[in-house]
């Protein structure tokens, strides 16, 4: 019976070692023999947990300290001994004074926390959106492919009255250097006679340069320049006549020649596309 409850602190040393604490019918009470051992120097500054040192912390009465080999050992304290640690290092300044009610600063503390959280959330959402769109945009067309979609033309190489054809996006691109007479004629055309009424002004940025896609709007053949009855283009496939503004005048084609997007970065160059 090696488990013992240190009920009587003073007598406990005498109850140690092999001794029968309870006399049975066949066993007499064998008093323990106290063997004097070597005195050990104990460093009192170093705290250590023994029955003796714990005894000082436990209630003086009741089985509060129990030590055993084959049963639970422990020291029981009261719940009122539990000390809530001092969290002053973590407190906000308004809450450091324990004599001040926390209700007064409650609104401002919450407002600050929510503001910081809200701002962080907004910034976070935008960051996420940016990162996501950056990753997704890697799947879009690369620069060399995009570059192929534009064409830059030196306009000084096109003499007046001449129509130059360029390959652009797999289609023929007509750039015509129009003379002043041609421009005047085209601008004077009445809307009523046109199948697809469009004024010349609406089809050119600079009237000197007429830029259209050379694909017949009927069935897609390439019209011949400086041909036809109207001083413009003539499509040999089915006989569509276009004027110098690329508008359909005679023949089966329903619409005018398409005008692509272009801009003049300077006098001498045009970028189409």
């Amino acid at each position, binding site marked *: 019976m090696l488990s013992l409850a240190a009920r009587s602190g003073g007598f406990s040393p005498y109850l140690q070692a092999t001794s029968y604490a309870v006399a049975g019918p066949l066993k007499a009470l064998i008093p323990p023999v106290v063997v004097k051992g070597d005195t050990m120097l104990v460093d009192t500054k170093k705290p250590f947990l023994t029955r003796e040192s714990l005894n000082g912390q436990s*209630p*003086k009465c009741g089985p509060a300290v129990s030590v055993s080999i084959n049963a639970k050992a422990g020291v*029981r304290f*009261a719940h009122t*001994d539990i000390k809530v640690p001092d969290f002053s290092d973590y407190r906000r300044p308004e809450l450091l004074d*324990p004599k001040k009610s*926390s*209700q007064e600063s*409650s609104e401002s503390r919450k407002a600050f926390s929510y503001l910081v959280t809200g701002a962080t959330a907004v910034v976070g959402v935008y960051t996420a959106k940016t990162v996501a769109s950056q990753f997704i945009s890697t799947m879009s067309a690369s620069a060399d492919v995009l570059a192929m979609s534009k064409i830059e033309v030196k306009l000084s190489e096109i003499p007046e009255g001449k129509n130059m054809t360029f390959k652009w996006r797999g289609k023929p691109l007509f750039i015509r250097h129009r003379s002043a007479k041609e421009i005047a004629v085209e601008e004077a055309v009445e809307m009523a006679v046109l199948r697809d009424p469009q004024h010349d002004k609406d089809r050119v940025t600079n009237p000197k340069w007429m830029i259209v896609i050379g694909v017949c709007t009927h069935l897609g053949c390439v019209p011949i320049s400086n041909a036809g009855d109207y001083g413009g283009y003539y499509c040999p496939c089915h006989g569509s006549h276009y004027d110098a503004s690329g508008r359909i005048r005679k023949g089966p084609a329903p619409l005018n020649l398409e005008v692509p997007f272009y801009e003049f970065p300077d006098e001498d160059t045009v970028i189409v596309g």
Partner: protein
Amino acid sequence: MAASVCRVGSTVGRALAKARSPILLSLRRGQATVSYAQSLLGVPETRLTALDNGLRIASEETGHNTCTVGLWIGCGSRYETEKNNGTAFFMEHMAFKGTKKFPQAALEKQVESMGAHLSAYTSREHTAYYMKTLAKDLPKAVELLSEVVQSCALSEADIEQQRDVVLKELAEVEGSLQDVCLDLLHATAYQGTPLSHSVLGPSQNARTLSRQDLVEFINSHYKAPRMVLAAAGGVTHEELVGLAKQHFSGVSFEYENDAVPVLSPCRFTGSEIRMRDDDMPLAHVAIAVEGASADSPDIVPLMVANSIIGSYDITFGGGKHLSSRLARLSSEDRLCHSFQAFHSAYSDTGLLGIYFVTDKLSIEDMMHWSQNAWMNLCTTVTESDVERAKNALKTSLVGQLNGTTPICDDIGRHVLNFGRRIPLAEWDARIDEVTPKMVRDVCTKYIYDKCPAVSAVGPVEQLPDYNRMRSAMYWLRF
């Protein structure tokens, strides 16, 4: 056949008329003789007088043959420091160990021979010593009380002996897990302030408090302006005042060095404390926010709000027909073994909370539905909820005052808290004023989006993290 029945009937009627028993003949014999409103107004008035030294005397003459008379003192564990925490409790133990005039045996004999009960209690802000006795023994009772409070013997031998008793009580109270849980709730909610002190005090203080500490405590706190001599029962106010003049005129009203103890406000900290022990069978959890002080006008709507949540025990027979929604859920989904909504009101602060006992796998659900009940109070409480709660509250207020001792306790505490006794009719009127909008507004003020204090004892692994419990104090849908 019919004729014989008629003859029997008329004979009985004549016999009853001869007996002239008013009860049997009265047409209203199933009904009460006074209505509720009449009974409220019929309550005898509580009379209040003050002595020259500031000691107040209050009594209600109820006409019983017995009476309860006692001294309610405005001091408790809140007035203690960390070093002397537990003094008020120790003092309560020492009080009945004999006085200068009556040694212990003599005191006991006096009390027993009257057939009286002498008891005391200590709380965080109040201490009470009271005696329950026959109305005719009032003079003796007041004399004994005055002896106990003013000239307690406080012998060293008794102090040493009582240490053991106090320590045993400390050990015993560990078994009452409700007290442990609520003590820990105070310890964490009011950390760093005097309200965090438990009434019992730490075991170290029980071992080291000296006679000097007790004497100092009495000298600083047992002062006449902070004392109320309250009585209820078959007592007349004039007799009581006379006895008080005779025995209590000597109570001091001056403080040494003019050091009047002033209660400073106590900071509430939203925090938690978990005492996890998986070997315990049930988990005891309490969650609370800072509530209203005892004299705040919000106290009545908060009491109504607590009545809406109500209380529950697994042994309630109502099952899914209970009126409180949380109780219905607890019963149907087996959420908990018991819960109660509580409001501990102190002089300038309070704790409004829910305490529940449940097994270790239902803690999360119970916490969710408890906070859900709070959110409902703040947002969607209905007219019928409030009506039901008002009736329940009125019933409980009236029903608690069912004897001279509860009435006397009521008087003592009211005079200490409010300076006067608040009559039942006034409580009734204030309760009637409460509307659902008022409940919603008041609950929003104290509960919505506030940091709670949580304490948990037992197998509490499933209790959610504090941040999650804090997040459940508001609803995104609003």
